């Protein structure tokens, strides 16, 4: 679609949407959001990009094959579960560690976050795989 307005707006919007998607992923544990919603937002952003610029430029922009993203996500989710197994706990038990402790704030990170990133990668990978394939068919 050759629309100057859409293309110009897309430039601005897509980057905002992607940042928002990452923001959703990070805040998910404490406020609405999470890997799944984050990935859907990113998927919408890429869909917009495809409509404005075509599939080829999206492929160039993301550099990696989205199918690899699916495999990476599955692997990450599995690894996040296996970490617990190696410490002798049941598969997928959440493990937490304090990363930084400030006077009135504590930052803890755990394997569930890795798992959420895995979900993000799989969902985004699936959406991209399908819409790119549709657009190129």
């Amino acid at each position: 679609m050759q629309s100057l307005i859409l293309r110009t707006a897309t430039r601005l919007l897509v980057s905002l949407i992607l940042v928002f998607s990452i923001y959703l992923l990070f805040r998910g544990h404490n406020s609405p959001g999470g890997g799944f919603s984050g990935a859907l937002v990113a998927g919408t952003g890429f869909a917009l990009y495809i409509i404005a610029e075509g599939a080829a430029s999206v492929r160039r922009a993301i550099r990696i094959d989205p199918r690899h993203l699916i495999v990476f996500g599955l692997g990450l989710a599995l690894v996040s579960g296996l970490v617990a197994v190696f410490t002798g706990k049941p598969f997928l038990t959440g493990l937490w560690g304090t990363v930084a402790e400030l006077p009135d704030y504590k930052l803890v990170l755990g394997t569930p976050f890795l798992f959420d990133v895995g979900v993000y990668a799989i969902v985004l990978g699936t959406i991209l795989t399908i819409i790119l394939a549709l657009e190129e068919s």
Partner: protein
Amino acid sequence: MGVSLKHRTEWIVRASCILPLVLFLGACAMVPAMAAGESYRLSISWIPALGVNLSFMLDGLSIFFALIISAIGFFVTIYAVDYLHGHRDTGRFFIFLHAFMISMLGLVTADNVIALFVFWELTTIFSYLLIGFEHEEEASRKSARQALLVTGAGGLALLVGFLLLETISGTYEISRMVPQASLIGAHPLYGAVLALIFVGAFTKSAQFPFHFWLPNAMAAPAPISAFLHSATMVKGGIYLLARFHPILGGGGAWTCTLMIIGAVTAVGGSILAMGQSDLKKILAYTTITALGIMTMFLGGKTTPSLTAAMTFLLVHSLYKSALFLVAGIIDHQTGTRQLEKLGGLLKFMPATAFAAVAACLSMAGFPLFFGFIGKEIMYKGALAEAMCPELAAGAAVLSNALMTAVGGILVVRPFLGRPVGYQAPVRETTFFMWCGPVVLGGLGIIFGIVPDLVGHWLVGPAVHAFHFSVEDIKLSLFHGINEPLLLSIMTLTLGVGFYLAHRRLFQWINAAAEKIPVTADRVYDGCVGSVARLGRLQARIIQNGSLHRYFFIVAATFLFAVGYGFLSRAQAFPEVMPPLLAWREWLLVIVISAAVITVLVTRILLLAICALGVIGAGLAIIFLTFGAPDLALTQLLVETLTVVIVSMILLRLPGLGSQARNHRGRRLFDALLAAGTGILVTTLLLALLSTEMDRSITAFFEQNSYLAAHGKNIVNVILVDFRSMDTLGEIIVVATAGLAGYALIKKRGSG
């Protein structure tokens, strides 16, 4: 670069022989403890809630098998490197080979029956991958599938048998079932357990009538036949029978079934072996014979009978794997495995010929060879049998005599006799290829010289592990002039007779085989064919490619199944309260209703899709007003993407003037179905609202979300922590659906 990569792969796979070697040395180190009658257990909890553990037990029987598996695994590994020289899938072959070996070792050491089942099926799967290694050939794929289906079905029967055993004995651990043998034997389910375990063992060990997959499995490369289909995997069933002998064995049903099936398999296999001309097929049928003999002797319960089974297992593993490797060498060097195209190879390949002669003499049971001792103890066992010793002895003599003849054929025809004109000059193979058969064949001689050591260190502990008697197990070369010796002499005489007549027997057997109307192979083809026909039929009815039909079936099934369930239980129609809505909510109702009407009346698909999106967005706002922001967010995003993706598809489709939509009767029917489903769902929701909510789970999540899982967003904590196993399942579905969708789109695109 390609060349150096291949070279490097070859070195890596050659080095991988260290794995079986280390395992073999480890098993050797255990031998003295086993001979002293000790056993070790190791248990790792796996699914403790269900009593399923990864528990392993090392006893004489396990170590006996582990020694055979790792030793032959070592020789097969170094052999296969040169056998496959230059093959593009060398790396894959060795990964399968070693994975198979590990699974097989797991199978013979597992103490928990569920773990045993898992290893059992793993061996089946790797056998499938290895038989089908040359996957570009139709025959390979067919044979691999056949072996998978037959042994896989047997594995399922085995699983059911194990589950029944657990309900009887209350444990999954074999070592804890053994003390309850009398309880199990008296239980009404004993017969069912026995039958199921037999099906598992018989399919794996190629007993009649499940024998047919083994000759077909000869499509596998020779080292695989040597390893899986003579020495290890097919002995899995024998191992199972031995392992369960103290739990299920000894009764009339046990003895009778094993003796008859074993005898039929042994005699039938050896007769069919005489009717083959392909080296590997001959070996496959004699393997069936050998497995039949072992099954037959495991039917007994006396020490000589069980000793015979285990001794013969060792004898057979040595000579048969050597012979398969030799057959592979012959095929590799001359390009043929057909007997009539071979001859005079002794001159060209002295080392291979030595291995073949030693192995064949062991197979034929010549005095001084280990095979002779195996045969002596076999006759002793047969005569000690409580139930019809004549049958056992007769079957053993007949099949041994035929095997003697086969041994003669295998030595004389390819190696002696006239040299045949070969296309290219035939040379001896490499050291790595002939050393395996030479050592394995040579062991037949060495074990024949020191039978008492073999009896004391290997066979004795193996037998005592599943046969609790104080009787000493002694193997020796000469027992004096007695009945077994006479039977041995009779066997050799008969064998020579069969050998001399083998060309005539070959014709007779093939002529007779053509007249048999029903063979197990054809029954198998019939079964597989009818399953395929059933599949086609159901696909034609419920999966005809019309999206309308799919939706219709799903909705109708839901309506009738859930509707029936609800109506049969509901006492009264749920009370309907007139909704008290704020003006904003009325606005939503109006917007959603308008969108619904648009979907129903419009003929423009794009508009319909957008209207559906409006409905979804409206629902999202409803979620938001009732305090479910996470749900609302996800709903909104999903709706947006759905509209985008479906529009992308629709833009590509030809415009649907749609005959379907014009068909009045069908439209009415669809409308009724849709209305019915809508009413049902609404009623269900109303019914749900009129009941008390169980808040115990909600309360648990509320309490623990932040304390245990460091998250304030309960929905997300449930998704990624409390119920992450569910999520894992869901993302696997998402990934699979994505890849499947990709494949479909690409397939359509390419025509």
